Every structure is written in C-alpha cells, then in structure tokens.
C-alpha cells in the first residue's frame, strides 16, 4: 500500500480586522483602522476635539450597519445634540440614531456608578454592539472623595480594571476618552496607558492661531505612522491637513 502523502497545507495567515475611524488620513496612520476588538485611549486637553473624533468613529460604524453605543458621563443630552448639529454630518448621524444604530446614553457619575457593571455587562452580552465610546473616563477619578459617591482611590482602581475586563470581547472596539491637563499628576492615570491597546493623542498649540496635531504613540498589532499630523475642526468635523499642500511658495 502506497503511503499517501498528505498535501502540505499553506499556513493560514489571518489578516487582522480593522475598524475605520471614518477619517481616511487618520485611518492611514494605523494601517486602515483600529484593531477590531481593541480598547483605545483617546487623550488630550479640553477643547482639542476628542468628542468630535468619537462622533466620526460612531458614524462610520453605524454607516456600515454596526450598532454603536456612546456613553457620556459629563454632559447632558442637549449639549451632545448641540455638538452634533455643528457639523455637516448631523442629519445622517441623527437619522442613524433614530434607526437604532447609534445609541446615546448620558449619565451623571453617581447614576453611572450604580449602573455601570450591569450596563457594561449588557454591552458585552449584546453581540450586535460593535463600537463603544466612553466619554470620558476621567469622571472616575474626579469622583474620588466625592461624598455622593462610593468612590475611593482603591475601588476606583478596581472599577477601572473591571471596566476594561467588560469592554474586552471579540468584535467590540472601544474608544475611552481621557481628559488630561498639565496640572494633573501621573497618579491620575491608574495605569490606563498600560491597560489600553492603543493611544491616540490630540494636542494643540495656541500661537495666536490655534494649531492641532494628532499623534499615535502606541497601537498594538499595528505599524503605526510615527510622526504627527496637523488637523483642523471645521464643518465636516475633523479635517486632517495635508502638510505638503499647505506650504506656500
């Protein structure tokens, strides 16, 4: 009996799935998008455009038929509406919300503290939810020693770790927004830069005219663009400036 040699199997290389942010120049900085199933930190000072970037992220997912959830822990719903309405994509965004593809939940912190475990568990269980934004994660820290909450330094650390555990599941890509100002010391981080799979940093320089830049210092499983790029905030939301074109003769 002749030995039948089994044909050699070609090793299967699985291409990592990526979720587009919705801004092609930023997608190109991360090989086409954020790794699917990752938790990404979006940090920067107030007013730099973090919430606006997260709107692009939600809109892009909803346009693809993905269910997207936006949890805001600092602003009331009317402020979110006002922010959305500043941009050309407002009608499309709100239409997608009506169809149930974008879900916006606003809590104040004491409410959130009561419901977050259950909320994150529901998000984890609902496999239709593909994108999640938490805006912002800082509310955890600012609530420490607040007499109306149960937050202390130790249980905030536990809440952060529990939240990250809940956010991690297959096909759920999460953006956590991290407000940061110069005055805050490193302790406020609670090791979040180590817990996340990637960090997108937005920053601005006020030299009379305001300049904004995006920089991606960390993105697991990605050969990210190593330089920073300039961007502006206009009617279309975040618009990355092509720096080669912007040089004048």
């Amino acid at each position: 009996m002749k030995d039948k040699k089994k044909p050699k199997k070609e090793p299967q290389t699985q291409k990592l799935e990526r979720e587009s942010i919705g801004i092609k120049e930023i997608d190109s900085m991360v090989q086409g998008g954020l790794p699917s199933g990752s938790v990404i930190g979006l940090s920067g000072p107030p007013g730099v455009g973090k919430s606006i970037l997260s709107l692009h992220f939600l809109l892009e997912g909803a346009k693809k038929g993905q269910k997207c959830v936006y949890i805001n822990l600092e602003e009331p719903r009317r402020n979110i509406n006002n922010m959305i309405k500043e941009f050309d994509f407002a009608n499309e965004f709100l239409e997608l919300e009506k169809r149930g593809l974008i879900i916006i939940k606003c809590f104040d912190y004491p409410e959130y503290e009561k419901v977050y475990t259950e909320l994150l568990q529901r998000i984890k269980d609902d496999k239709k939810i593909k994108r999640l934004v938490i805006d912002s994660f800082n509310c955890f820290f600012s609530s420490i020693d607040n007499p109306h909450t149960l937050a202390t330094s130790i249980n905030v650390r536990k809440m952060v770790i529990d939240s990250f555990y809940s956010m991690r599941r297959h096909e759920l890509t999460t953006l956590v927004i991290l407000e940061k100002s110069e005055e805050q010391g490193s302790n406020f981080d609670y090791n979040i830069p180590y817990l996340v799979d990637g960090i997108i940093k937005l920053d601005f320089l006020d030299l009379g005219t305001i300049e904004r830049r995006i920089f991606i210092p960390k993105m697991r499983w990605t050969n990210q663009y190593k330089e920073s790029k300039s961007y502006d905030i206009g009617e279309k939301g975040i618009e990355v400036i092509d720096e080669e074109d912007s040089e004048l003769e």
Partner: protein
Amino acid sequence: MLNIKGYFLNKLLFPKVVVIHKPGIIINQISRKYGGVRSRLRTIFFFEDIISILQSETIKKIGKEKTNNLWYKIGKDFTTRYLLLTKAKQPPSFLIPDIIKYMLAGFRSAGFSVAEKSKYNNKRKTLSLEGKDNLLCKKSEICEYSAGIISALMSFLHGTNIEAYSKTISYKRHFCHIDANPDFNKRYIPSISHLQPSKEYNKINFPKRVQHKSFHSLKDFIKFNKVNIDSSAKFYLKDYVIIPVEAGWLEIIVEHYNRLNLKNFLDEIITKESSNIAKNILGDISQKEKIEALIQILAALGWGFPYVKKSKDKIVINLIHPPWNKLGFSYQPLVINGFLNYITGKKLNIISTKSNKYPHSIKIEYASIK
C-alpha cells in the same frame, strides 16, 4: 582588567546633564559624583542672528581689533561664570587630556564645531583647535569669542591664566583656528567675585510652585514643528537659530558694551534686529494673534510667563518668574521692544522697569515717545 581611569571619568567626574523644559522655565541640571555636586542653571534661548549682527555692526563701529578684544572678554567671562555656577573642581592633571576630549565633544553636540580638530599638549599646557560653521562666528567672523571660552577652560584646568588667540582661516568656509598657550601675553583676567552667582540665584530662579494659565514649552514647539533640531544639534525657530545659554550671559554682553560706552548702540541693534526677526516669525496675522504668539514664544524660550496689558498710550509686559541674576535684566526687554515695534507698527521705547524678587517678576512699560 578594570579600567580605573575610565571608571573614574565616567562615573565620578563627567557630569550628568539633564535639561528640564517647562513652560516659562528651562533648567539645566548638572550633577557630578566627584565632589558630590549638583547645580542648576536657569537657561534661556536667544536668537543667534541678533548677536551675530551685533558683532558685525560693532566691527563697523569700533574696528575689528577692538571688537575681537571685546568679545574675547565676553567669552572668557561667560565661561568663568559657567564654571562657577556648575561648581567645577580642578581635576588631577593626568585626567586633563580626557576631560578636554569630553568638553570638545560637548561643544560639538551644542553646535560649536570649533573642536573638529584638536591638538593638546599636557606638558606644555597648549591647545590648538580648528573647526567651521560655529554658532555666532560663522556669520560675523569673530572667532575671539570662542578663543575667550577656550582661554577660560584652559585656565581652569591648569589653575593658571592661559590666554588664547584666534584667526579666521577662510571667510567662505567660516573656518576658525584657536591657539591657547601659557606663553601668550596677558590679555584679560575675569573678576571671580563679580561673576560669582549670588546666594539667591537658586531661590529666585527655581520657584517651587508655579501656577499659570496655559503656556507652551519648548517641547510643545518641537512637537508642533515650530522648533526643529538639525543633525548638528542646532535648534531652529522658523529659520532662526536659537541657542540655549545661562541667562546671565546676555547681561555680560550688556555690561561689556556699557564699559565701552556702547550701550545706546547695543540697544539700537538689538531692538532693530528683534523687529526684523518678529516680522519673519509672526508673519501676517492680526495684532491680537501676534501678541498671543509673542507670549507663547517667550514662554517656550524660557523667559518666564509673560502677561500683556495694552492701553491707549502704552504696553505693559509683566514677566512672572523670568530668569534672574545679579548682573541685571537689560537684554530681554530690548528684544521684546523689537517684537512690539513690529507688532504695533510704532517705535516704542522702554519707559520704566520695575522688579520684584519674591516671587520674581519684572514689569516693563513701553510707550512711543512723542
């Protein structure tokens, strides 16, 4: 076999330098195990062009020989002050060749390529250096400033006054040749007591708590490509080379010009050149934006925290935590004067300067004289 000399040099003698860039305040922290020394220098960035043009104009005013002598003294005073600030200790003579190599490498990394080629004789205590495209002298051809630096260093290393001379080899290639030799005639001896920093230097220059509205640091400027660093470690703000220096150096320049009754001339040159620089850096934006840009530039260059108040007849600049030294504070107000002249389109003058030590602040009033 354990290299004891290498160990001694690297671990104990050669200082560790850390530069701390904060908005408004730049600190050069130097620590050295040999002698258990830690010292801090309040550092600011200044525009190379202003000084280069000052040197060139001074040649036209008083002639090359006098300008060379003037800048030789400035270079020697600056280095002497630097050695006093860093509490440098005279090393054992067998280590001097290695220390010279280390210092020259440090010069190269700071943009002073004067040390591209060097020849040192420990027995005869002589040093010859050659290099090109040095900061300052590449534009003005005044190599005597670098000669003053070398003279001060050699004098310190050997514990005896050693003078130096320089010559420009070729104008086109901006080449400097410097010789230091104990046999040269006496040229200039710095006054140690005058250059010695005051006991209050640390207390005033390095405030413990600083809380001000959002200002940018040099690091922010680098991040946003406003300041670039080239392969020879030169910093550029737009197209202008900016040089980090201990803040007292600028006042040494003012002092020496004062001694030659050239203070008015100096004021005019600094203000005029600053105005030209402002035109290119600030560009075509609104006046309000120009003032905001000036504020951020001064903060990023380590000049403190500027606050500007404008009224009909005058502009008041309040600098909080600017660099302080006992030699004075004349240079920076002139540069700001130049910038304000461009911003306002008027010829302003300094009307008054008031300072406060704790916390350190300086209030400068500018107005146009009718």
